[in-house]
């Protein structure tokens, strides 16, 4: 009998636990991490329809109004955005340099949902407008999870949208 290959019985679904949502950083913690001791001023992001069309054209992705928020710091820009993937909702923060180059990306929150739940407005509504928790719980109850790799292409697409929004809405079009 094999000694190095352990066959695990199929676990009863009734006893299985959902993969926990993770809160990594609060908005304030991410700002502190990326722009320590700097003053951050919120920017009103109100792209015109033409600008939205240009962002969508240059990134090949859909622009979701309302998801993206921006701040001006002394040494750059701070963005927060939420993206929906095949099986998850991810909130992330991007720090751009004053010249608009990506300096850092940090995930703020990660929530999983399957079976189309992630696309349901009702499921998403529970997270809209809520404040990010201040405390990040590190405890024995939080499991690290091993499984097949999940793609994060939607986060990569989101970062490209942040860059296009910066270039077209905040920095403005290049002089002719």
């Amino acid at each position: 009998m094999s000694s190095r290959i352990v066959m695990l019985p199929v676990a009863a679904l009734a006893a299985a636990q959902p993969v926990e949502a993770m809160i990594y950083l609060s908005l304030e913690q991410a700002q502190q991490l990326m722009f320590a001791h700097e003053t951050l001023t919120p920017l009103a992001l109100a792209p015109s329809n033409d600008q939205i069309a240009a962002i969508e054209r240059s990134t090949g992705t859909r622009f979701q109004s309302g998801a993206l928020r921006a701040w001006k710091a002394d040494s750059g820009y701070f963005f927060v955005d939420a993206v929906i993937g095949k099986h998850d909702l991810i909130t992330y923060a991007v720090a751009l340099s004053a010249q608009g180059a990506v300096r850092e990306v940090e995930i703020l929150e990660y929530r999983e949902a399957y079976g189309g739940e992630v696309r349901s407005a009702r499921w998403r509504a529970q997270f809209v407008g809520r404040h990010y928790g201040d405390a990040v719980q590190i405890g024995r109850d939080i499991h690290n999870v091993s499984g097949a790799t999940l793609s994060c292409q939607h986060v990569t697409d989101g970062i490209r949208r942040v860059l296009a929004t910066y270039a077209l809405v905040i920095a403005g079009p290049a002089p002719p």
Partner: protein
Amino acid sequence: MSRPPGVRRARPLLGTLVEICAVGAAPRRLNPAIDAAFARIEHVQALMSYHDPASELSRLNRAAASRPQRISAHTRTVLSAALRLAQLSEGAFDPCIGDSLERWGCLPDHGYARPRAGSWRDVELAAREVRFRRPLRLDLGGIAKGYAVDLALEALREAGVREACVNAGGDLRVSGARAQRIALRHPLAPQLTGHTLLLRDAALATSAAYHSRRRLRAREVSALVDPPSRRPYLGAGSVSVCAPECLTADALTKVVLFAAPQAAERVLAACGARAYVQ
């Protein structure tokens, strides 16, 4: 209620979310250590990304069939481990399956010279150079993630972090005197976790088709390729491998999926590893 002080952060790297958890000191001490660990992973990504046409790996896929290419010490370490495991497993693990994954739309086609059915045997690795005997698509995706996890954990250790976990989208390694509980995704319902394992100062990687399986024209594909037949793995099972290092654990999941049981047993023994199949 007290809880151990710690920091848990995540970044999008290596095509997935990489999570680093460090425990045992104040955040102002742990955050720079975590920054250094992420920087090591970014370095591996810059060298070995298949998606990035500017990576060292892409240079090999573009040019190593025409003339020998110089490679960095990191890429050499990973490629040399990949070739050793390919030999040990008699090809059940093979890093030269990138052309299949390109055809299935799992990896980008950068338009380099068309590969002709090749295998790990067509890779000639010298001290500082590598050459392909024919146009190939080398893909370190099945092993480099594990190596990046190992380097990140090393960076944390160098910074004085004694207890940590680095998890690159399911391939992970833990350090510290305390055993850490790892939950395995349920292969039939991957949003749930069923079994849990206790891991102490070791690595665990998992391969399964539940996240990558999809329809492509009239057939089904996944991101897991059986090297000799070039067929996708479409089974409902999930293989997790526990090994001292994540590089080994990552590659060995493919050996257990695709090698005959006796061969897999032999390779696991040679690497001091154990597999959990569900």
